[in-house]
């Protein structure tokens, strides 16, 4: 706090005058071009490796990290099917759906694309109301949504993102990470497909491990199983 009246104005004007005589930082743009660092990407562009494959793995890291959500993935997959999830398709030219599903440990049956159809949003809205639209309840919201539809339809995921304010990349990333979620309707009558809905790596790892160690088949898992949640595990 100043005690002399007017001293604040004097100090302020002193700053103004100092700045007035300092050299300016303005670049007179079209005539003078600023130096651009070699790693600056400007407009987002995906790079190809030496074999011509896209280097992007569709891991959603960048979309999840981008604070203003300008990054998202959408477009046409490697089989030429249109399956935009969200956001402008032109930003990321090609969405490698196959890769996304592979990362999630799930097979890519054609039935998966039924999940892009429009659905009745009534059930998911009810779930959201029950959870107070709170994004901290995401797992619960997703679990109940899956219980309502039998799987997680893309339209419902979008609605969850919209209603909770959680980024779509985050909602999708969560849904595709946990073993209990299905992004496609369960394949009726095809137990092989239904089983493959779950993360297959643990069961096959254990049987390979047993084989490598020359062990016989493991005893059936005791009481350690609960309904649908259980992957084969010994």
């Amino acid at each position, binding site marked *: 706090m100043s005690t002399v009246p007017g001293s604040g104005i004097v100090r302020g004007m002193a700053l103004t005058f100092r700045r007035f005589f300092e050299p300016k930082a303005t670049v007179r743009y079209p005539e003078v071009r600023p130096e651009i660092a070699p790693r600056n990407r400007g407009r987002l562009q995906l790079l190809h490796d030496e074999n011509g494959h896209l280097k992007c*793995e569709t*891991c959603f*890291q960048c979309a*999840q990290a981008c604070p203003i959500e300008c990054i998202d993935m959408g477009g046409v997959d490697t089989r030429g099917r249109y399956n935009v999830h969200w956001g402008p398709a032109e930003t990321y030219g090609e969405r490698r759906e196959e890769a996304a599903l592979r*990362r999630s*440990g799930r097979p890519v049956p054609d039935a998966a694309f039924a999940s892009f159809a429009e659905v009745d949003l009534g059930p998911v809205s009810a779930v959201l109301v029950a959870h107070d639209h709170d*994004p*901290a*309840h*995401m*797992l*619960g*919201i*997703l679990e109940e949504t899956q219980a309502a539809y039998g799987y997680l339809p893309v339209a419902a995921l979008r609605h969850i993102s919209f209603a909770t304010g959680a980024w779509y990349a*985050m909602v999708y*990333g*969560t849904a595709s*990470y*946990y*073993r*209990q979620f299905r992004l496609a309707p369960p394949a009726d009558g095809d137990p092989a497909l239904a089983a493959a809905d779950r*993360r297959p*790596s*643990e069961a096959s*790892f*254990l049987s*390979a*491990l047993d084989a*490598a*160690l*020359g*062990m016989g088949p493991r005893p059936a*898992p*005791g*009481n*350690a*199983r*609960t*309904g649908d*949640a*259980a*992957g084969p*595990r*010994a």
Partner: protein
Amino acid sequence: MTRLLATPPSWPRVLTAGFGADDPTDLDAAVRAGAFAGLARAIRGHGRTGTIAELRVSGLRGRGGGGYPTAEKWHTCATTPADVRYVVAHGYEADPGTRVAQALMEQRPYAVVEGAAIAAFAVGAAEAIIAVRAEYGEAIRRLRLAVERATDAGHIGTDVLGSGADIAVSVRPVQGAYMLGEETVLLRALEGKRGQPEQRPPYPAERGLFDRPTVVNDVVTLAAVPWILVNGPEAYAAIGDPDAPGTVLVQVAGAVTDPGVAEVPTGTPLREIVDLAGGLASSYRLKAVVVGGPAGAILPPRELDTRYTFTALREVGASAGSGSILVADERTCVVDLATLLTRFCADEACGKTIPCRIGLRRLAEIGERAVTGHARPTDPVLLADLSADIVASALCDHERGATRPLTTVLRYFRDELDEHQIRSACPAGVCRPIAVASGAAAT
């Protein structure tokens, strides 16, 4: 239940006392056996800081793999300024082949609940969450019953023992992937987010669940806490190795006659632990033991004198990890085994960082080239360099651990690896290399 292996009568039973009871959820029987006496002592006698001080004297270190001193973790959590604190009991048991936590939660539900409640009291948390692997249906059922009965009886709940402290314990099934074992991933799962690790520090004890200070302890660590408070920290510190006293739960499996779970004092030589499982099932000689689960070290017989302590294991390139000890006889090819483990670790890696997403995949490929007879002349050097880079640049302990199978094979089974990489041959006769002319496996 997984079999409990018989151990010498002189070995103390801190965790497995009471295993095999008719009904482990019977509260009266449990209380007669001493349940909730530790919590009462903490509240009536020691108080918050006193409880942590007792724990410090006991020398208890985390059984989740890292071996971090439990008292320090609790102290950090208790002294970090915050409005809310949490305790998370880690019962996810990430290693798909190990079931020690499952056995403990099924057989001693009250010890786990009480341990979590003591932690909550000591750090000033009103909520303790026991996160259990969703497949462990029976463990979840028993833990829930235990929480319900203990709450009804007033052992936990609101205003416990008139102390004014509220301790709510809840049981949360979690499922997902191997990576949920990592503590920051488990916390993300409890928050409902995608399971990827966070940079540490800040450790969860400073900023954890919902950004609040959170104690994350293995259920095995927590189950020892009531015993320590009842029998005194000096008694616990006198068990096993002075550097990391107490007992550990291990699981011995693989090519042994009698696989099962056992409680052993720390510092017990690996050989003695392996012998608990009744020796080899075949007439072949022992070739290797895999210590610590999928990201485990593959040790040769001459390292069997290694004592089971955090420091001694680290010196031979291993980690206690999930408590799993897998025994392999001479029919096993260690290169094949290491490749299998590395591939699993690479598949389960979360994809967040480059060592995790790309590094582990390249590492698994080195192993795969070796077992299929396609090794490149540069592979031995690449294996050493890449592993060192991954260890140096990893975000979480999963990537660091995932280098162990192949690096320990490089360290202890160099001859066998060379046979694969240089001559495209498998001495154990397991791998069927697509043999190119001998020595000309370069691509």
